[in-house]
Structures are given as structure tokens and as C-alpha cells.
């Protein structure tokens, strides 16, 4: 039974573990927060050691059929410059990230079946997975059957943020497109687990609804997934709204102190769940939070397709009512999803981590585990071997 059928009753009558988590979010004194931070840091060291996994997002496309009030890629933003990278352009971006050290890349795309099909994603993964040991996806939710070829091609992780667990706010903010279906999105992690993804990331885009309410639902979701998706490593993100095309303003405050309190509460409640901190957050906050509970950080990120190497800059266009409209915009780049805040290079982030006694871990996965290489090599060998003549 999917989480979508359980969420409302769990929130209405929270089990003891969820109620305990909720109490940790209550307004608290500085001393109480300090105590939480100490526990959080100690638990993180115990379970994850003095390490920090590094990753980078690679945007494939900023085309989107959805109309989401807060997102820079929303189809309503007809003025933005869009592009979908070709496979070799994706490879060039990945090569750049690999040279910077990344062995763990998150492929991101807007939702647009015409430009970002399952087949396109499969080809991207097949092209990259020999050079990049760990590939994850943050793309439109799919059926289990549609995920299978992506896992078989070498995708290790899937990230899907619910954005907001507040059904009412969700309907108000997702104005049109397949993303309007709250329950379909909510059950995506379970479909991903069924398809064999090894890492599953969930999260909330904070600022769309009351943060304590969102965090409680997020924790309920984690409890559920721990039971159901027991062979997947779970990660959680708590991105906050950043400036983007469309100029949407956060509806609810979620300050640094709230953010820190939530981070600690998540760690104390879920000692083994990975916690992700992206470049949405400013450098000073990232530096301070790195030892407190975070286990994965992005670095040097770009949130537009071609952002690392300028790939696709000669194919930029506008998309109006699903159709490409030429644009005289040479020399520019595609429009980003949102503005990043920490613009330090990956090398600078690695040095910052080392100075805080944390080892930056670039590689902690080998594509050989899933055997995609072996399977592929066997297939290639079979294809190269001329067929034996059949007896007459």
C-alpha cells in the first residue's frame, strides 16, 4: 500500500516515533538547540565517519510541460532560453565534471516527454556510466516498468521531491501539467525501489507551506520508506526557495535557525539516512552545517543545461505552447532553474571540508557492482562475433 493512501491518517494520528520527532521541532532555547546539534554531529560521525560525499547536478534540459508557480522552468515562463542537450553534449558536460573530481553525478531535467523521453535518458546513462561510477536521476516521475531500462543501463539513484506535502498548497502551486497529481508523485519513491534503484532521495521545497507541517510529513514519509524500501539507501534534502524566473516569493518563513533545528532533528531521528545540502545555501551556512549532520554536498553547481561548458548555447530557443520559437540570443546561456548561492569551486569546497577534518569522498560506488559493464561487454562481444554458419 503506497504512502499516498496512508499519509493523511498518519499525520492525523501520529505514531509515537513521529510524535517524538514533531516535538523536536517545537520552539526551543539556544541551549536545547546546542544539545541537539551535539547529538546530531556525534551520530553523523558514528554512522558516516569523518567524510562528506560530493556530487554535482548536470542539467540535461530545461524544457517543461508543467506550470509550477515557483519554478524557473515553468512553461508559463515563455521568455526564458531553453535547450535540451544532445548525448555528446551531455558527455562533454560530464567529462568536465569528472575532470573536476566528481564520480557521482545527478542528471536533472524538466518534465517534457517530447524532449526528455525515457529512451533519451537511457542513452544518456549508457553514454556516461563507464566514466561516471554513480549516476542518479532527478526527472519526471515514471511507472516502474519505465524505470527498469534506466536501472539496467546503470542508473543507481533516483531523486524526487514532493515539493510540498500540503495537498491544498500543492494544488494551488501546480497549476497545470502531469505534476498536478499529488498522489502519483508521492508514490514515486516506492516505484523507484520496485525498479531496483539503490539510492532514493526525497525532500521538501521549503517556503511553500508551514515548515513544521512539511517536516512532519517528510519524517512520516521517511519512516514509511524505511519499512517498504528496505534495500534502498535513503537521502533527504531540505532545499529552500531561491530566486528564479517568475519571481515567486516564499509564502512561509524558514530561517537559518529553523533549518538547523530541522537538520538536527532529522539526524537524531534517522541516524542512517543521508542528508543533502546543496549550493542553494550560502557558503557560511554550508561551512557551519557541514559537520552537524550533512553527509552529501554539491559543489560548483550550475542549474542550467550546458552550464559547465557552454554546450548547446547555439541551440537556445524559447518554447511557446510546446513549440520551439527561434531566438536571436547568441552568446548567451540557457536559463537556470534557480540562482545558486555558494559559488565556490569544487576544489575550494574540498579544501574547506579538509580544513574542518572531513574527507571529501568523490567516489564511493563502482559501476561493477551492478554489473552493467559486464553485461554490456558480453553483449558487445556477442554483436562483434560473426554468427556461426549453420549446417545445411
Amino acid at each position, binding site marked *: 500500500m503506497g504512502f499516498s493512501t496512508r499519509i493523511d491518517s498518519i499525520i492525523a494520528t501520529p505514531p509515537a516515533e513521529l510524535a517524538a520527532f514533531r516535538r523536536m521541532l517545537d520552539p526551543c532555547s539556544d541551549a536545547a538547540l546546542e544539545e541537539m546539534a551535539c547529538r546530531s554531529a556525534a551520530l553523523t560521525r558514528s*554512522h558516516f565517519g569523518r567524510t562528506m560525499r560530493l556530487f554535482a547536478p548536470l542539467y540535461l534540459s530545461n524544457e517543461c510541460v508543467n506550470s509550477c508557480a515557483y519554478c524557473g522552468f515553468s512553461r508559463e515562463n515563455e521568455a526564458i532560453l531553453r535547450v535540451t542537450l544532445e548525448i555528446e553534449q551531455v558527455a562533454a558536460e560530464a567529462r568536465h565534471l569528472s575532470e573536476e573530481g566528481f*564520480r557521482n553525478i545527478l542528471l536533472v531535467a524538466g518534465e517534457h516527454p517530447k524532449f526528455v523521453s525515457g529512451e533519451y535518458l537511457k542513452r544518456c546513462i549508457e553514454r556516461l556510466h563507464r566514466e561516471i561510477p554513480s549516476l542518479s536521476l532527478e526527472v519526471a516521475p515514471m511507472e516502474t516498468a519505465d524505470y527498469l531500462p534506466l536501472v539496467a543501463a546503470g542508473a543507481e539513484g533516483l531523486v524526487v521531491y514532493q515539493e510540498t506535502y500540503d495537498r491544498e498548497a500543492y494544488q494551488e502551486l501546480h497549476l497545470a501539467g502531469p505534476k498536478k497529481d499529488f498522489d502519483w508523485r508521492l508514490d514515486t519513491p516506492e516505484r523507484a525501489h520496485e525498479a531496483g534503484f539503490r539510492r532514493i532521495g526525497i525532500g521538501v521545497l521549503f517556503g511553500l507551506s508551514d515548515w513544521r507541517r512539511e517536516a512532519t510529513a517528510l519524517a512520516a514519509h521517511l519512516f514509511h520508506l524505511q519499512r517498504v524500501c528496505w534495500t534502498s539507501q535513503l537521502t533527504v534534502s531540505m532545499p529552500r526557495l531561491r530566486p528564479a524566473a517568475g519571481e515567486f516569493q516564499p509564502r512561509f518563513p524558514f530561517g537559518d535557525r529553523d533549518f538547523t533545528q530541522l537538520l538536527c532533528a532529522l539526524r537524531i531521528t534517522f541516524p*542512517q539516512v543521508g542528508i543533502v545540502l546543496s549550493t542553494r545555501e550560502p557558503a557560511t551556512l554550508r561551512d557551519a552545517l557541514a559537520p552537524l549532520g550533512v553527509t552529501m554536498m554539491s559543489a560548483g553547481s550550475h542549474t542550467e543545461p550546458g552550464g559547465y561548458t557552454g554546450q548547446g548555447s547555439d541551440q537556445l530557443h524559447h518554447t511557446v505552447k510546446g513549440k520551439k520559437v527561434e531566438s536571436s540570443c547568441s552568446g548567451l546561456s540557457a536559463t537556470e532553474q534557480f540562482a545558486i548561492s555558494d559559488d565556490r569551486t569544487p576544489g575550494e569546497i574540498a579544501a574547506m571540508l579538509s580544513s574542518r577534518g572531513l574527507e571529501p569522498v568523490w567516489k564511493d*560506488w563502482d559501476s561493477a557492482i551492478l554489473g552493467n559493464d559486464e553485461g554490456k561487454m558480453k553483449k558487445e562481444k556477442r554483436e562483434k562475433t560473426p554468427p556461426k554458419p549453420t549446417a545445411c
Partner: protein
Amino acid sequence: MPLNIAGREFSSRLLLGTGKFPSGESMARALEASGAQIVTVALRRADLSGAKDPFANILEFIDPAKYLLLPNTSGANTAEEAVRLARLAAAAGLPKWVKLEIHPDPRYLLPDPIETLKATEILVGEGFTVLPYINADPVLAKRLQQVGAATVMPLGAPIGSNRGLETRAQIRIIVEQATVPVVVDAGIGAPSHAAEAIELGADAVLVNTAIAVAGDPVRMARAFRQTVEAAAEAVSAGLPMQAETAIPTSPLTAFLRES
């Protein structure tokens, strides 16, 4: 008497894991201080392509002349995945020894007994020296010995939990029935836990988190070394048996011998 695994002798009874350290340099110094001769490395952290990847260079901090490098299959969920990793490591020139870790549950990292037995059988058949990480299950330990495991490595408590020998009673049975060395792995959070395992009859212990995340990993490594050596010396000297009841200095049945 030295520790003997698959015909190879080791004077140290402390094996070390290499994850969770703040840097490669810090890990290398801790290895040195620990006196360990067997060091395990997660293959997923290493570069096995031969390209000397500077961003996956964990093996460069471990001198193969000083340590037996014991590749581990952490990350594998099934026997098939673990076997594939072990073969890949051997093909990359690493020793044909493998610490078999198959834990499909990333939350508690508890080992899968069925897949572990399967993989052990396959790898032993291919000439690997197999050291399987297992839950403290005496029957599984015996089954693994039957198919040729070089040691059994029961856990004291889940990896990284530092909770000591929660499985003490089961480990005692495993030790009592073992025909291969027993290495207590996981859960050892303090030197006293390591001493307890050795005094219980385990042949060696494997420690990682307690050293890697210590305030000073080098000093902690040294503390473990000294404690394990002291416990092994005590066992060798002949530990007195523990008694459930008091033993009076004036025997209660002495009257039978009085005439």
C-alpha cells in the same frame, strides 16, 4: 601462538577497516600505530581501472609490503554482485583474499546469510581466501566452514554502532564450535570491547569506526593495539574460569575426607 588464517601467520590480532577517516594521511598513521597486518578496503572507494585516479586513491595510502590488503565487497546486495566485485579486484592485481560483505539493508548493514553462503561457496571454488562477515549465527558459521571459509567474522553489534558485544552468547557458541579463526567484526566501540572478544576466545577483532572517528585516531589505534595484545597475552597465560557461585576457601565437602 600467532594468528593463522589460511596457512598465513600474523602476529597482530587486530584487523583494521579504512573507512570514515578524516583523510588518507590520518588513516595511514593510524594503521601504523595499530600494528595491524591485515587492512580491509571497500572496493567501491577504490579505483580498479589501473588509471591511478587521484580522486579515488585510497589504496595509495596502504603499503602492500607492510599490510595484507583485504578487499571488501561492501555495497553488494547479492552473491552475484559480491562475486563480481571480488573477481574485479583480483583482476586488478589485488590479493585473492576477500572480506565478503553482503548487506542489502543500508540502514543496519546486517549481512544476508543466504547470499553470503552462496558467494562463499562460489569464491572458495575459484580459489579465493574468503572471510565472510556474518550475523552471530552459529549454524551459519558452521555451514560457512563446511564450504571452505577461511574465517568467520560474526558481528558484535551493527556496523558503526559502537555498542560492543551484544551478541556475546552467540559468539561464545561460534568460538566453541569453530575449526577456523573467529574474527569479531563490527560494534567494537572501545578497547575494552576488543579485550572482551579476545578473552571470550575470539582469535582476532576488526575495528574501524572507533578508531577512525576518535578525537585522535593514532592514539586510539595504539590503545586498541595495546589492549588486544594484553588480552591475547592473558588468554595465553591461562585465564581463570569464571564461576557462577562463590568458591569457599574451606571446601564444603572436606568432611568426607576427614577420618
